[in-house]
């Protein structure tokens, strides 16, 4: 069976993620907070290619994005777990393709990613977050989850359509 990770054009599509993260178009943002581009790429990849490939893709994306961002917070653990979870969902259940389901999965993924970052921040600040950081963290978390969940039905559906054509199950 042809696998997604054996098709160079599909693997190369991941390069779009760091460039979108750098471009961070302001018209695709809520209160200045853009979507989690890594989640929007990883969700269809893991659903089509399975848990192992999803987890590895999550680690790879996380390493690249960590290199682009300052501050020492890492996205690798959250993206690894999300890639594994979505890969299992894609293997076990009937194909997920409804807009609402995709939006909900992306929303949950973005929340998980944001919570992992808040947790790391909390850990680095000695187990306590001051009120200003708390309110900023929660606002960023909800804004990112909302815009990611809203964009997912459009972008993830398109990627699923293209990738499932290339890898018929």
């Amino acid at each position, binding site marked *: 069976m042809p696998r997604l990770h054996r098709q160079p054009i599909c693997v190369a599509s991941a390069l779009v993620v760091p460039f979108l993260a750098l471009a961070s178009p302001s018209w695709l943002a809520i209160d200045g907070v853009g979507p989690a581009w890594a989640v929007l790429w990883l969700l269809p990849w893991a659903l089509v290619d399975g848990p192992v490939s999803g987890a590895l893709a999550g680690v790879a994306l996380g390493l*690249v994005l960590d290199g682009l961002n300052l501050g020492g917070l890492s996205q690798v653990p959250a993206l690894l777990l999300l890639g594994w979870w979505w890969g299992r969902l894609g293997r076990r259940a009937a194909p997920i393709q409804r807009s609402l389901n995709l939006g909900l999965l992306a929303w949950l993924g973005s929340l998980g990613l944001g919570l992992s970052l808040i947790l790391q921040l909390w850990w680095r600040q000695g187990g306590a977050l001051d009120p200003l950081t708390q309110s900023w963290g929660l606002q960023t978390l909800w804004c*990112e989850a909302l815009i990611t969940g809203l964009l997912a039905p459009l972008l993830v559906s398109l990627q699923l359509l293209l990738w499932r054509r290339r890898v018929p199950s």
Partner: protein
Amino acid sequence: MAPTLRPGKSRWRGLGQLTPWLLLVAGLLMVRLSKGAGFTDAYALLSRPFWPGPAQREWVTAAADLEERSRLQLLEDDNRRLRGLLELRQQGAEDGKVSAAVISRSSRGWWQQLQLGKGSLQGIDQGDAVLGPGGLVGRIASVTPATARVKLLTAPGHEIGVWLPRSRRHGLLVGRGSSRLSLRFIDKDPDVRPGDLVATSPASTLLPPNVPVGVIQVVDEQAVPAPTAVVQLIAAPEAIDWVQVQTR
């Protein structure tokens, strides 16, 4: 096909199949260790036609007049105080300043940083101060030959020492993610009130001295062990398309 009777050969074949993956992992680690230098340089090359034009630069220059006036006042006060007491040699205002376009901005999300279109080839180095219209914006955190990454003052946990010119007290300005920063004082009675200007220390060696940073908004005098204040930045990173880097 019958299984091979030469385990050594199949082992080498397995290693050959793994080689592309090992190369990929090595490549990813190189990206991580180089802090995405290849990506940022490629992005700078691709986005060059869309960088802000000269009109924006003139607007920034005009807007910087206000900052220059307050800087001048601070410098005059400072010179009067120090003249004859210390032989401090301060650099000229325009010495070592490099104008750079902001080619990527992340000022409201999880990471507060800017990407500039100039790098070490133009003399920018790690730790250099970055000034926008209104005052200090952040410091250079990493450089590539063609780009530089700025860690904004608003980044959570980013700390710089600051000075209150009116009361002549020092404090520690800490980024909290939003455009409001937290100012921690060392003294129990810092003699501070809303509206006071916050600037870099006149004796600072890490940052250019007497650069305006922000304005005190709220003071919490009940905080322990010392009072704290909320500071609003003068230079808004989300609206800046050109910055000046003070090289050392």
